[in-house]
C-alpha cells in the first residue's frame, strides 16, 4: 500500500509488478475442464510455470490501466520527437482495423478467400508508388530498418547480376543508426561521409569515395537536420555514373508529399515508414511497417509473394527466379497496412499534400520562435523539423539532457536528443502537422522559460524532472549490473 507521508507526493510510482500481486490459484480466465486426456506422453509435460501471474480480470485491468497513467503519449501530451513523426493517429483507423474481415483472417487460407485483403494490398502498393514517385512497391518489411535491409538486398542482387555485388555502402554522418547497421547485415562495409557545415552532403564529398567498390549510397532526404539535400540529383548522378545505386531513407517522407517525389531525385530504392508519414500508432515501439519502393529495373528482385491483378481478380505469385526471397513471414504487418490505407483514402491527394505543407509550416514556426534563444544546427531552410544545439545553455552548465527533462515538468515530451550525432547536444524538434498553433506557442514558451531558468536557476533545470512518477533514473547502474527480469525473492 502506498503510504502517504512526507514522501508521498502523489506520484503514484512503485506499483507492484504482476508477479508481486495476486494469489495462488487465481486466474482471470474461465474455461471448464475438458474431459479426455491431453494425449501427450507424460515425460514431455512440464510442471506449473513457476512465478507466472495469478490475478483476476479486474486486478489485471487495474494494473495495466494504472501503468498507462505513467506514460506520456500523443493523445495526452505534445510529443515533438524529431525523426519520429508523432502525428495524430486517427481513431477511425483503429475501428476499421478491428473489423473481423481484417482482424480474423488467416494468412494460409486459400488466396481466393481473401480478395478484399489482396485488393487492399495491391492498391496500397500503387498508392505508395504514386506518392513517392517509384514504380513498384513491396509491403512485406515490418519496419523501416527491415525495409532498409530489403532495399539493400535488392541493390545487391541487381549488382550481382550485373557482375559484381561490390563491397561498400556510403552513409552520411547524419544518417540514422539503422542505415549503417542494415548495410552490415547486408554484407557491406560502411563508408561514412561527412556533411558540410550546414549539414548537407556535397557532390564532391561523394565523388571522393565513390568508386567501383561502392554498391550504393544511402541518403536521407530531408536529412536528419530537417534540411533538404539540395544536391541530391547531382549526387545521384555521381553514384550512377560509377555504377552504384541510390537508396533513400524515406523516414522523412512527411516533408515531401506533393512537394517533391523521391522518384524524381534519382533515387532507385527507398523505404517508407507507415508509422511515421501514414499515421499508424507507434504503440510504444511498434508495430510499424516499412514498405520498399523501387524503380522498374529492380522489380524482378522484389520479395515474394507478389500480388498480381488479373481481370479484376488478385492472385499471389512466387515464381520469380531473381527474387531476394522472403524477408517477413506471410504478408508483413497487414493490420498496419490497413490503417495506413485508411488514412490515405481519408485524406486523399489534397489532404496528403496539405499534411506535408502544414508539417513544414509548424516546424518553421517553432524554429522562428526559438532561434534567438537556442542555436540552430543549420541555417539552411527547415523542412518538417528543426534541430537546435545546447551551445548557449552549456554556458550555464545546462545540457540538452537537462532541457529535455525539464520539459517533462512543463507537460511536454522532449524532442529527440543527441541525434543526429554530428550536432553536439542536438535537440531535434518535429512538431508534425496535426498540432495547433496554440500548442506550438505553449511549447515554445516552455522552451524559452527553460532557457531563462538555465540562466537564473540552473539547478532547477539540472535536477529536473520534479513532477514525473519517478525522477531521473540511474541508467549506468542498470547497464552495469543488468536486472532484466523479476525473480522471486529467496528467503
Amino acid at each position: 500500500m502506498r503510504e502517504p507521508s512526507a514522501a508521498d507526493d502523489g506520484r503514484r510510482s512503485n506499483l507492484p509488478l504482476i508477479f508481486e500481486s495476486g494469489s495462488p490459484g487465481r486466474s482471470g480466465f474461465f474455461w471448464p475442464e475438458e474431459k479426455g486426456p491431453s494425449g501427450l506422453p507424460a515425460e514431455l509435460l512440464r510442471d506449473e510455470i513457476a512465478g507466472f501471474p495469478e490475478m483476476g480480470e479486474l486486478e489485471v485491468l487495474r494494473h495495466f490501466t494504472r501503468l498507462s497513467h505513467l506514460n506520456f503519449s500523443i493523445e495526452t501530451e505534445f510529443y515533438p520527437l524529431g525523426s519520429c513523426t508523432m502525428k495524430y493517429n486517427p481513431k477511425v483507423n483503429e475501428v476499421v482495423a478491428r473489423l473481423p474481415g481484417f482482424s480474423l483472417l488467416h494468412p494460409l487460407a486459400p488466396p481466393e478467400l481473401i480478395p478484399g485483403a489482396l485488393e487492399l494490398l495491391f492498391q496500397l502498393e500503387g498508392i505508395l508508388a504514386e506518392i513517392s514517385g517509384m514504380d513498384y512497391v513491396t509491403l512485406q518489411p515490418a519496419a523501416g530498418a527491415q525495409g532498409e535491409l530489403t532495399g539493400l538486398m535488392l541493390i545487391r542482387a541487381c549488382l550481382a547480376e550485373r557482375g559484381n555485388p561490390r563491397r561498400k555502402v556510403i552513409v552520411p554522418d547524419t544518417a540514422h543508426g539503422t542505415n549503417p547497421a542494415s548495410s552490415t547485415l547486408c554484407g557491406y562495409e560502411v563508408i561514412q561521409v561527412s556533411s558540410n557545415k550546414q549539414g548537407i552532403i556535397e557532390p564532391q564529398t561523394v565523388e571522393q569515395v565513390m568508386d567501383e567498390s561502392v554498391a550504393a549510397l544511402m541518403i536521407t532526404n530531408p536529412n536528419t537536420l530537417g534540411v533538404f539535400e539540395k544536391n541530391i540529383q547531382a549526387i545521384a548522378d555521381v553514384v550512377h555514373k560509377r555504377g552504384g545505386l541510390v537508396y533513400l531513407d524515406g523516414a522523412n517522407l512527411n516533408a515531401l508529399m506533393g512537394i517533391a517525389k523521391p522518384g524524381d531525385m534519382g533515387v532507385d530504392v527507398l523505404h517508407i515508414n507507415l508509422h511515421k508519414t501514414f499515421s499508424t500508432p507507434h504503440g510504444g515501439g511498434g508495430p510499424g511497417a516499412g514498405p520498399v519502393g523501387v524503380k522498374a529495373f529492380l522489380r524482378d528482385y522484389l520479395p515474394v509473394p507478389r500480388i498480381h491483378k488479373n481481370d479484376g481478380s488478385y492472385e499471389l505469385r512466387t515464381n520469380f527466379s531473381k527474387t531476394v526471397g522472403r524477408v517477413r513471414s506471410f504478408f508483413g504487418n497487414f493490420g498496419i497496412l490497413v490503417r495506413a490505407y485508411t488514412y490515405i483514402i481519408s485524406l486523399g491527394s489534397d489532404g496528403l499534400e496539405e499534411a506535408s505543407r502544414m508539417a513544414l509550416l509548424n516546424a518553421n514556426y517553432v524554429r522562428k520562435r526559438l532561434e534567438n534563444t537556442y542555436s540552430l544546427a543549420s541555417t539552411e531552410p527547415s523542412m518538417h523539423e528543426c534541430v537546435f544545439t545546447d551551445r548557449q545553455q552549456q554556458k550555464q552548465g545546462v545540457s540538452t539532457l537537462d532541457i529535455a527533462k525539464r520539459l517533462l515538468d512543463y507537460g511536454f515530451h522532449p524532442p529527440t536528443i543527441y541525434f543526429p550525432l554530428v550536432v553536439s547536444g542536438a535537440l531535434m524538434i518535429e512538431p508534425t502537422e496535426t498540432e495547433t498553433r496554440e500548442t506550438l506557442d505553449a511549447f515554445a514558451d516552455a522552451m524559452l522559460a527553460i532557457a531563462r531558468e538555465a540562466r537564473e536557476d540552473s539547478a532547477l533545470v539540472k535536477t529536473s524532472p520534479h513532477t514525473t512518477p519517478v525522477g531521473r533514473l540511474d541508467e549506468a547502474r542498470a547497464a552495469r549490473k543488468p536486472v532484466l527480469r523479476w525473480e522471486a525473492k529467496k528467503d
Partner: protein
Amino acid sequence: MRYTPHTPSDKEQMLGTIGLNKIEDLVEHIPSSLREKARISLPEGLTEVAVKRRMASLAAKNASAQDWRFFLGGGIYHHAIPSAVDAIISRAEFATSYTPYQPEVSQGTLTAMYEFQTLICQLTGMEVANSGVYDGASAAAEAVLMARRLQDGRRRVLVSRALHPQYRSVIATYLRNLEDVELTEVPFAPSGATDAAALAKALDDQAMCVVVGYPNFFGVVEDLVPLRQACDRTGALLITVTTEPLSLALLKPPGAWGVDIAVGEGQSLGVPMTLGGPGYGFFAAQKKFVRSMPGRLVGETVDAEGRRGFVLTLSTREQHIRREKATSNICTSQSLCVLASTVFMSTLGKTGMRRLAEVNAARAHRARERLIKEAGLAPVFSGPFFNEFVLKVSGWAERRGRFISNKIVPGIALSEWYPELQDSLLICVTEMNEEEEIEQLARTFSGR
C-alpha cells in the same frame, strides 16, 4: 485535410511570424523541376462515414474466422482473446507513445516490457529474454546471426526441414549476403521430427548452430535430448523456434532441455490473426549470451530517491549507439503486440494458460482420432503433437471444393513446400473449434 487544425488565420499569422507571405514560400528552395512533378494523383479525401463504408465492404469480401470454420495453424493461431486485452492496448497512453526513450514519462510501457521479459523467461524456461522483435521468422534469423557472433570462425548453419518453410526462407534471405555462412537443411524422420541420425552426421566442428521447431511445422514435438547431445558433441548451439507458444504451458520448455536460444512467434498469445501480422517474435537465451542479443532490453534501476524504475538498457548493442557494429538493425519493433501478450498472459495466468493448453491438446487429439476412425484419413507422422497434426486426404484437390462451399478450411496443404507430402493436410484444432465443428469437419471428410 481532416487532421490539420490550421485555419486560414492561423496560417496567415504563422507565416507572418516566420516572415513569409505564402505557404509556397516554405518550399521555394526545393528545385522547381521537382516541385512541378510532385502533385499526387489520387482520389479526393473521404468523410469518415464513407471511409468506414468503403473499408467495411473490402473486409466483407474476405473469409474470416467469424463466419468460417478454420482448422488452420501453421504459425498463426485462432485463440480466445479476453476482451480485457484490447481494452488495454486501445488506451491512447500505450498506443500513441513512442519507444520509451524518456523513462521518466514511459514507466507504463517500460514496466510492462519488463514484465513481458519475465513472462517469456518463465514460459520458455530461459534465463533472459528481450522485449520482442518483428516476428517468429526474423527472430529465427536473428538467432542464427547471434550464434554467428558467438561462434566466431564457424560457418555452417543446420536447419531442420521440419522448421516452418517461411521461416527457413527468411533465414535464407537474411544469410544470403553473408559470405562466411553456409546453410544446410536436415531431413525429417517418419515420426515427423528432425532426423536425429542425419543431424548427427551433418554436425561437424564448422557447425555453429542447429535450428529446429518446437513443436515443429508438422505440429510434432521434437525430442530435444538427442539433438542437444549431438550439438554438445561438436559445440554447436541449439536453437528452438516455437510458432505456437501456448504449447509451452504444457510441454517441457526449451530451457528444461538445455536449449541455448529459444525464439518464436508470439501471435498465439493474445494477438488477433490479422492475416499473419502484426504479431511479434520472442527471443530468449541463456544469460551468458545477453550482450550478444539483438533487440531492446529493459532493466530495473532506481532514481535518486530510491524509487524503483525501469529503463532501456545495454543499448550499446543497438544500432542507434553502435551503428554498423550493432547486434541487429532493428529499431521500431512490435511493442503494442508485446503488450497485448503481456495482458493476455497476465489474465490467463498460471492456471488459465495450463487449462487452455490442455483443452487445445485434448481437442486436437480427439479430432485426429475421429478423422482417422470416422473419416478414414491416414496418419502421416507418428510423433507426439500439441494442437496440430498431419493427415493424408486422398484426392484432396477434388474434395477441396466441397469444404469451401461449406465455409470450412480444413487445413493447410503441405505439397507447396513438401512435394513428397502430396494430399497431406496440416490440421489445427484449438479451443475455438467447438465439438460440433469437429463433427462437421469429420462429416465433410466422410462425404456425408
